[in-house]
């Protein structure tokens, strides 16, 4: 999907750092009531947020609502954003996933009760002590390759877990697979992805 890449990995990393510096500066301005700063954030991140929301909710009108909710929350809480928690871009995407999965849950009344317990979701949102880090473009490409290399069962498990927001038991039910097998598939798929990202030698980076 990306074109020829002439930039070095270090150059791309510098880009990410520059983007985050600009995002944090914009959040500072938003906290001071500067509306143009929100437009600034929108222009940089709306595409990624909308694309992720669309992948999860599938309906454009719902993806638009999710995008709107993310920016409304960003505007409302920018002043409280903890800068030591890292990349704004990663936080925005995390919120987008979370809102999109909420939207799925509202739409699908047939879901089991435990789906509303976010602790049980097979891949929950990171806890408050986790620093928001972004994957570099190189790491995203590695992740894409690694996903394509997974077995169809592993891939289905991680997609239902991440993009479907399902619990382990729901994945087990939906795929007619024993619970233990589902847990193993999700865990090993995550391990494969972690290893693929570590290949780049940047796994320890903090923004």
């Amino acid at each position: 999907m990306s074109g020829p890449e002439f930039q070095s990995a270090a150059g791309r990393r510098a880009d990410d750092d520059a983007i985050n510096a600009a995002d944090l500066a914009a959040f500072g301005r938003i906290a001071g009531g500067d509306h143009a700063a929100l437009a600034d954030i929108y222009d940089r991140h709306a595409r990624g947020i909308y694309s992720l929301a669309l992948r999860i909710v599938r309906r454009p009108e719902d993806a638009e609502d999710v995008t709107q909710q993310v920016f409304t929350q960003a505007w409302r809480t920018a002043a409280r954003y903890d800068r030591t928690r890292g990349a704004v871009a990663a936080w925005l995407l995390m919120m987008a996933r979370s809102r999109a999965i909420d939207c799925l849950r509202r739409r699908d009344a047939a879901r089991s009760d435990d789906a509303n317990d976010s602790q049980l979701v097979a891949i929950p949102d990171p806890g408050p002590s986790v620093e928001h880090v972004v994957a570099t473009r190189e790491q995203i490409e590695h992740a894409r390759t690694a996903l394509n290399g997974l077995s169809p069962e592993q891939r289905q498990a991680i997609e239902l877990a991440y993009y479907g927001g399902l619990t382990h038991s729901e994945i087990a039910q939906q795929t007619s697979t024993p619970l233990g097998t589902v847990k193993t598939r999700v865990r090993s798929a995550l391990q494969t992805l972690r290893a693929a990202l570590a290949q780049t030698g940047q796994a320890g980076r903090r923004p």
Partner: protein
Amino acid sequence: MTHVEQEDMRVLDALARVVPQQAPPPALRARVLTAALAGAQEPAAAAPDAAVAPASRWPWLLAAAAAVLAAGTSLGWWSAQNEIQRLQSTIADLRTTATELLNVRAESGREQTARQRAAAILSAPDVTYTALAGVMPAGTARARVYVSPTRGLLMAAEDLPALPTGRVYQLWTIVAGQPVSGGVFELEAGGRAQVLADAPPGPAAAFAVTIEPTGGVPAPTGDKVLLGIPTN
């Protein structure tokens, strides 16, 4: 996995970004920014949500108007796309206006004066209209405000949520930095409402509907449910 480890954060971010990338519809930008700016901001320090003086509660409207206008003028080529979208929605709105005009004419009976006044405003040569969008959580609400400086103001709203006892909706026009009340109103069947008011005393910077105590208030104090910025 009961909680996400630091190293998994990067994996989750990668999963969020490997999805097919697709640009959001151009019209979403103005909608999102308007809706976001209409929301209150939380202060940096965790302050209790104490009563805020009414006068400090409405400048968001002007600010939202300014931001949307500023954003709209700095977009270069992108604004051409936007203009096409705007014209398309203008055509759709004009169709709706025609339907409303026919409905107003077709209506019979006791509200003849109001009906005639509404028809007079809709058919005025100097009438302009503004679309109002619902502010979350009243996201699906929408309305149009028609203003004829010579004949008055008409607002038609749809999909407004029902209100608890003791609360009414109140329409506002911002003129020269000041909120001007367009009166309070309650819902008709099906979440619809129609409001007739005098024309605002000058060009409107924005229109909004807020939830207020019965009887209304001199300046907005309550939650915003609808917001619209005139396009010209």
